[in-house]
Structure formats: C-alpha cells, structure tokens
C-alpha cells in the first residue's frame, strides 16, 4: 500500500467516526428536540396534571362526566386556538378573536336573526355567526396586509370596537336563544360525547391537515418564516396574510356558535379574554411566536393542559386567582424551554 493510500484512509476513518458521532447526537436531538419531543414534553405535563388531579380529587376527577367537562371546557378556546396557530405561524397575532366571538354570538342571536331562523332553518344562525366572524377577520387582514398596519395594533382596534359593536347591538342585554332546532343540535351528545367536543375535534383535524398537507399550510410556514423569501419565490404574501386573519375570524364565528349552544344565550361579554387563552395555548404548544413553525398537535395539548389545570383547581376549591398564577408560571416555563431548545439546535451550525 502506498503512502498516499494510508494517508487517505486515516481521515476517512476519522470522518466515519465523526459521522457516526453526529448521527448519534442527531438521533438524540431527534427525540428530545424534534416536534415529537416537544409534544412528548406536553403529554408528560398533561399526565402529571392528571396525576395531581387523581391524587387530590380521586374519583371525582376520573369520572367520565368530569373528563367530558374538561373537554367541553376546552372546546371553544380550542377552536379559537387552531385559528390562532395559523395566524402566529404566519408571523402575525390576532387579539380580536374573543371580541369577534362575542359580536358574532350577539349578531346570530338577535330577534331578527332568530325570527328568520325560525321561519327557515336554524342553520341561518350558524351562517350569520360565521359570516360575521369572516368579515371581521377580513377587515383585520386587509388592514394588516394591504394597509400595512401592525397586526398588534389592527387587531387591538378590532378587539375594542367589535366588543363595542356587540354591546350596541345587544343593548347590553342577554339574548336568549329560543330556536329549538339549534339548541337540540348543539346540545346533543353523539356516541356519548358532546357535540361541542366533536366540533373541536373536527376543527383540530382539519387544521392539522391544512397546516401539514396543503399548499395553504406550506404558504403559511413560508410567509411566517421569511416573508421576503416567500415574496421573491412568487408567493402572494399579502393575499395569504389576509386569508390567515379571515381564517382566524372564521374560527371565532365557529366559537360563537358553540358558545350559543353551550350557554343558550348571546351576550356581548361572550369570549372575554379568550384571545389571551388562545395565544397562551398556542405558545405553550410549541408554535414559534415569531412565526415559521407551528404545531396543531401542540396547540391541542396546550389547550388540554390549561383546561385540565382549571378543572383540577376547581375540584380542589382553589380560587380563580390561584389558577391565573399557575397559568402564568406555565406560560413562562414553556417559553423558557422553547428558547433553550432553539438555542441548542442552532449552536451546532
């Protein structure tokens, strides 16, 4: 063997060792740092919460009715959170979804709408709520995408004015829903599971498919990850941004319908502060607040964690104030964890 060959072999062996080393750390990183790893962390957190629930409340916590209560509690904010996941992944934020939900619930339960629904079909109420939601979302989207208003400000304005408009329409009264077909449908159980939970499940699955399997989802990630690169690749960033807010508005409309079903009344106070719960669930779930990476599974887990937490606290007769403190701690802990993961995955480059 010539000297050349020997020399060639040494770095080759070295190289393969390095590759192996990299593969090993890569595999480790795959488990701990990948999307699965993050979701695993959330599942563990959820399991721990449940363990606390079982330990402190026992059978009261584990009962079927209590679990369905947790899910029913999670459903409305869950639907909003799916829309919010898209907006945040696309590099934006929507502070108005809670107010838009309130407005849509009021608009869909006015005497005029309910009369029309009784004359024709209860679906009119659903259509009304969805239309109001999408319209409000479109106004947000046009202002942000074409008017170049910062998302935070545009949706803050919508948050305030949608609530105000809801108060004007409802005249600060609670509007009781008397369309029986509507109530029958949304208060029904299917296979022992409440309709609201089914709706949440359908929206979540649809959201997952759209984000991960469609061109719309890919555009969302591109627009949020690097809007300039997306634009120069030929993606219509402004139009897509508008669609994202319309989508968030649509989920607010769906949330309004669910709210009407649950509380049997439209009120301008419906959905108060829901936007904050939705943002918290999305961020805790692992979606990057700066955009470009989103996870529907994470969001669903985030929503479940918060509603389980609320349930555990309620079961133990702890105050709402104590709940709020615990929520805050969870949000900060999750974000700190996210940052550490992001730093570590970048250190190697």
């Amino acid at each position, binding site marked *: 063997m010539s000297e050349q060959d020997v020399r060639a072999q040494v770095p080759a062996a070295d190289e393969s060792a390095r590759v192996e080393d990299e593969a090993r750390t890569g595999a480790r990183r795959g488990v701990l740092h990948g999307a699965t790893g993050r979701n695993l962390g959330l599942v563990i957190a959820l399991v721990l919460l449940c363990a606390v629930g079982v330990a402190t409340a026992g059978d009261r916590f584990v009962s079927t009715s209590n679990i369905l209560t947790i899910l029913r509690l999670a459903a409305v904010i869950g639907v909003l959170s799916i829309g919010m996941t898209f907006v945040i992944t696309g590099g934006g934020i929507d502070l108005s979804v809670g107010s838009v939900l309130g407005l849509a619930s009021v608009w869909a339960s006015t005497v005029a709408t309910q009369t029309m629904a009784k004359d024709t079909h209860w679906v009119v109420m659903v259509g009304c709520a969805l239309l109001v939601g999408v319209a409000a979302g479109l106004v947000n989207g046009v202002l942000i995408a074409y008017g170049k208003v910062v998302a935070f400000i545009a949706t803050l304005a919508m948050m305030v004015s949608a609530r105000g408009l809801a108060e004007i329409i409802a005249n600060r009264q609670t509007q009781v829903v008397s369309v029986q077909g509507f109530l029958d449908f949304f208060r029904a159980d299917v296979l022992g599971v409440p309709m609201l939970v089914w709706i949440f499940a359908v929206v979540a699955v649809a959201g997952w498919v759209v984000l991960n399997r469609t061109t719309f989802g890919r555009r969302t990630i591109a627009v949020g990850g*690097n809007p300039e690169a997306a634009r120069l*690749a030929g*993606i219509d960033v402004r139009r897509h941004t508008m669609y994202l807010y319309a989508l968030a508005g649509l989920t607010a409309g769906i949330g309004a319908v669910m709210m009407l079903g649950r509380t049997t009344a439209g009120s301008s106070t419906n959905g108060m502060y829901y936007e904050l719960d939705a943002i918290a669930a999305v961020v805790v779930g692992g979606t990057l607040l700066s955009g470009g990476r989103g996870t529907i599974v994470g969001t669903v887990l985030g929503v479940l964690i918060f509603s389980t937490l609320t349930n555990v606290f309620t079961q133990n007769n702890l105050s709402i104030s104590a709940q709020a403190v615990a929520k805050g701690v969870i949000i900060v802990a999750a974000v700190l964890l996210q940052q550490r993961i992001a730093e570590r995955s970048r250190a190697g480059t």
Partner: protein
Amino acid sequence: MVDEDPTAAGVLLTMRGIVKQFPGARALDGVDLEIRAGEVHCLLGQNGAGKSTLIKVLAGAHQPDEGEILLDGAPVRIGGPVQALRLGVATMYQELDVVDGLSVAENVFLGHELASGGFSQRRAATARTRSLLARLGHADLSPHREVGRLSAAGKQVVSMARALSHDARVIVMDEPSAVLDAEEVANLFRVVRDLTAQGVAVVYISHRLEEIRQIGDRITVLKDGRTVASGLPVATTSTDELIRLMTGRSVEYAIPRRPPVADDAATVLHVEGLALRGAFEGVSFDVRAGEVVGLAGLVGSGRSEILETVFGARRASAGTVSVDGTELRAGSVGAAVRAGIGLCPEERKSQGLLLDEPVYRNITLSTFARTATAGFLDEPAERRVADEQVQALDVRPADPGRAARTLSGGNQQKVLLARWLVHGCRVLLLDEPTRGVDVGARAEIYALVARLAASGVAVVVVSSEIEEVLGLADRVLVVSEGRVVHEGPASQIDEHRVLDLVMEGSAA
C-alpha cells in the same frame, strides 16, 4: 506544520492545538496560528473550514476545549469579549455589530463609554471619535450621525473606529470587503497599511484571492477545522497551491468558455425605459435566449435595484418589462414568476431562504403548488424533484431533509439556483451569485450558469467583482449613478475600462 522560524522575534500572538467541539460537530480540530506584530495575516479556507469559529475563540465568544493561546509568549485565557478587548484583541464581524439607533460616537464607545461619576462625557467621546475617524481617513463623517443612516461601508468605518478605540494590538477583520465597492476597498487597504505600520497586527479573512495578494503578508490555510498550512508568504505562494490546500483538490479557478450566442436567438427579456424613482432611470436592454448579460457598477449604482425592478419586487416608476413579447404587470413578482423569471437575491439568508425549513422545501418553494392536487401537497414528489437537483448540483451534504441554515454559503446558493431550475425559468436574474461562496463552489456556480445559458435561458448577472461579470457575460452594461453609461460585448472591454466608465459616469 508551524514554521519554527527562529528569527520570528515579532511574534505577538500564538494559538496552538485549538480544539472546539460543538454538539454533533468538531468545528476546530487542532488549529495553529501565529501572528506577528505589524503583519497582515490572511486566514483562508472554504466555508465550514472553521474560520468563523476560530475568530470567535480569539474574540472570547467561544471557549476552546483544548489548546493554548500565547500573547507575547505568555499563556492567556480569553474568557469573554471584554477580556479579549482588554488584552488588545478586537474583532470586526462580518455582520457589522453596530447599533442603528445610536450615533457614531455612541457606537464607537459602546460598552466602554467615557464617563465620570455615571455621567457620560459626551464632549470627550465626540472629540476622540473625531480623531479616530480622521486616523481612518474619514474625517468627513460626523460623530453625531445616526449609524442607521450610514451605508454598509460607513458602518464598517464605525466598527473599525471602535476596534481602534480599544487600543487593539490585533484586529480581526472577517470579510471586511464583502460589502464594499472597489473604491472603498482601496480606502480600507490604506487604513490597514497604516495600522500595520504602527505595529498593529491584522488578521484578514476574505474569499477574494486577489485581495489577499494585494494586502496580505502571510497566509494560514484552514481545512475541516485543521491548519493545513501556516505562515505561507503571500509573495511566493501560487494561487493554484492555495486552492489545492483549501479544497484538497485542484480546481480550475476559471470561468468556462462558452460559444457565442446564435445570431438567430430570439429575444426573451425586453426591458424598455425602466426607471425607479431615486435609484435609476432610462434603463433599456434585451437579453436573448442563451445569452448572459452582465451589469457592472459600484455598490449603490442601482444595479441590484434594476434586477429587483425587472423582477417586480419593486414597482417601476416608468418603463416596461416583457418576456417573449408579453408585457408584465408592473410591481408584481407573481406575474414575473409566472412569465418564467427567477431571481437569486443578493442577501441569500434574509431574502432567499427559509433557514429552518429543510432543503427540499426551499427548493420547491416556488413550485410546491404545481405538484399539489386540489391544494394537497405531494411531498414525495417534492422530495424526488429536490433530490434530483441536490444530486445534479452536488449540494453538500447531499441530504434534502437538512435545515437550510446548516449549509455553507455556496451550497445555499445552489439551493436557490435549484429552485429556479425546478421552476424551469426562461430568465434568470443573479445578484452577487458568488458572494460569500468559497472557491470550489464558485467554479461550480460558474459552470452551472454556463450550462443554463447553453440550454437557452436568458441570464442577467450583477456582481461587485468586475472580473466575474466580464468573464461570465457575453454583453456588459456598465451602470453608474442609476444610468447605463456603456453597453457592449464583454470581450471588448476590460476591468480598467469599466472602472474608468464608472468614474466618468459619477463625475458627470
């Protein structure tokens, strides 16, 4: 391989056997470096060779896992950036680390503000800044100017003044010329010579071998985190030798010759009276199928803006762009892309790539909708298409699932080219296609451009390196102060003539 020159009395700083391990990668694997007072020591190596990590070790931003650093013969530990500066080692990073919202003087004394009893001594800072700027040949720059309003070259001067304000004995410059045009580079070199004459050592990193020839004294070559040669005298080391050391193989640092464009080749891109207020006006040119047209000019002459306006990324204030005779809607990137125009932008990372997304999704960024059915993505098809490109363009590492962030500059550029190859474009606009690209990948990109032209694509190239424009292009447009001052065959003009034209243009 460190040269044990007994006469090296002026050795200022020595690094021996430096090892730096990152999770999953050994960035430095035994690096030796010896810097003498008053020399310009060039650090050469391909992207990923470990240059950036090495200078971060010098700057105290990274702690080495093994090895020692000697200053004036005594071992030192550079525990952090502050300590590095105290020892007299200042670093000018490639991404200029200036704060846009602060003034020039505030930036120069950032982190070591002149103060007494907690009150900043603004007058003293201004005076010292003024004298530092004068020393750098920029007495015209006001210390009160807001840094965000300065050009890249201006920011670099500020960064250099900051280095000097620390009384640095070693100044590390990471690709200082990347953002400069020829005139500014000349000024930079004057400053560097001035510094070395005062006994300051400069560690100079650049991809441009011509520059190293002009300014360097000695060269250290890094490859795969190791020193493969150190202390090579610039004057007596051939370019071939340097390329061989850097790449470990011999690459012809040459642009392939192409046959002339066929006389009957159809005009693909037609630009007529294009203008962008405040940037350029009256720009008209045609590009035929298979032709490469180069835009030469200084930074700020309007050449990048011309490309971006042709692409619709900026809305033209006048004029039209047509592809195959069909006029495009102004200011619409979508229309340009649909008509078959592709742009590889100047800033790959901020304008071109989704850094955290895998390579294959970056390649299919403008075509994923085409392989989709009813809005549903066909990821296997995307991976297939991307994999073909990764193989064809020899993207390394050849893993389409890897995040784009982890690729070197040259390979990131290949990913962008692959995007437009998949798209099947008729017109390709390349803005600084080889900036920050190492020599080996450069040759591959030149070959690729030649191949694209041969297949009938109309190409427009913008580059700060005039030689590159002249070598690649069939026809050259010289741009100065937003106007085309010359148009003609690339073979009938040389670098000096281009510079003359540019100067005349800006004098007019």
